[in-house]
């Protein structure tokens, strides 16, 4: 019941702040771009678009969400409520993963991406949760949106570059330990999909627990008390 209330609260918050409107517009835009691309480019460009935006939206938007909650002191009330840190984290991850996965799937289907929709859904969901965990970890420490944006740059470079390289032909086998590369391997339906999915899932769980530890500390330090 509490989890349902939290999740609904996050969805209402994201709706009120225009996340749903924005991603409807962006999805239509990406589909428009995709269907104008030559068939030979389309698959890779569409995967690139999905991977760098809907899947990664948590990395960009978590800062705004958490900083709004900090500035409106909502976290103070949550810290003295029965809400557990794991519930807070899962609610944030699931609410954004719903937008990410829906937008990514819509783009993939409308542009005729030749992928297994089931594996794409799972991959998008895990990728979204992973990026949202990165976003939560940074947002919990950030005091301003500018600092948040600056702190996301190294994450973007670290996660995106090897993944984009893999998409365009740089494919060492050891690259599969990298979460971004695993996302690509699953999207491209390569030869190591089960392994890549397992590694991606492992990274997602690992960073979920990391985000959980950071959020637990953040909730204990609300009101300017540093422990």
């Amino acid at each position, binding site marked *: 019941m*509490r989890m349902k209330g939290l999740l609904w609260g996050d969805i*209402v918050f994201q709706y009120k702040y225009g996340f749903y409107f924005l991603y409807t517009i962006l999805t239509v835009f990406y589909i428009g771009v995709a269907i104008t691309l030559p068939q030979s480019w389309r698959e890779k460009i569409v995967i690139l678009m999905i991977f760098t935006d809907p899947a990664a939206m948590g990395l960009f938007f978590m800062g705004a969400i958490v900083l709004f909650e900090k500035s409106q*002191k909502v976290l103070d*009330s949550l810290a*003295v409520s029965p809400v557990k840190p794991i519930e807070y984290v899962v609610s944030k991850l699931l609410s954004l993963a719903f937008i990410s996965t829906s937008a990514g799937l819509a783009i993939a289907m409308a542009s005729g991406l030749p992928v297994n929709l089931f594996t794409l859904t799972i991959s998008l969901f895990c990728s979204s949760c992973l990026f949202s965990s990165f976003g939560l970890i940074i947002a919990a420490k950030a005091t301003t949106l500018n600092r948040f944006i600056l702190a996301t740059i190294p994450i973007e470079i670290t996660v995106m570059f090897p993944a984009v390289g893999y998409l365009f032909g740089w494919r060492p086998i050891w690259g599969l330990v990298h979460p971004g590369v695993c996302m690509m391997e699953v999207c491209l339906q390569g030869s190591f999909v089960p392994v890549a999915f397992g590694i991606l899932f492992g990274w997602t769980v690992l960073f979920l627990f990391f985000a959980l530890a950071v959020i637990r500390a953040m909730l204990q330090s609300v009101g300017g008390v540093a422990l």
Partner: protein
Amino acid sequence: MIHAKNLSFSYTKAPFIENLSFHIETGEIFGFLGPSGAGKSTIQKILTGLLKGYKGFVSIDGAEVKHHHNDFYETIGVDFEFPSLFEKLTARENLVFFSSLYKKHGDIDRSLAAVGLTREADKKVSGFSKGMKSRLNFIKALLHDPALLFLDEPTSGLDPTNARIIKDIIRNEKEKGKTIILTTHNMYDATELCDHVAFIVDGTIRALDTPRNLIMSKGASKIVYTYVSEGMERLREVPMRETGMDETLQRLIRESGITSIHSSEPTLNDIFVEVTGTHLV
């Protein structure tokens, strides 16, 4: 209900609160009075379980607060000094959301009506005045019917009418058997509402008693009267216990020569200044 013994806490190597001991009975209103930075918020954070690294002993209903279960939060309500509300949501949406986090759900419409926010129920909080946000924040803390209430400056920013409404609700909650911990700078609220108050300065309790005992024990009640003498109005003060020995007063009473007379007692703020040597700011 709440028992603290030799409670100490430090954010750095220097102690921030030191050797606090107090006892709060079920169903009483207990006030922590002190200037900013005195340690009131830290005490509240310890009691609400947010700060666990304290020394000494603090229990609520017999259970050490650092070991309490998550269900503890079902039984407490916290009204922070500054509104903690989603600005883009309406008053009703805020209450629905926060209420959904608890097992007990109060009547949202009745709560809004109690603080005069019925007409604003479906308006966004971002358009609310400071006082409206304060009132909404206050009922948010009460909605799940907590047995223990922490109220931080609950009348701050309110006009006298709304402050009176909030104080009446606080008294009503006490009558229902709730235990209320009031953190405030406002000596009038503390005098009016609290069964006991503790003066906190520099992380220590300088005095703890009922407001009346503090006022009566530390300060002398007196009578102030005026009369006309040699064509000029004169003012004279006499301690209450010495009125029988004040010959001027006796004579003026016999001659009906008093132009004004009233008793004067020190306020809690006067006692605070006397005891702590500092002001409640």
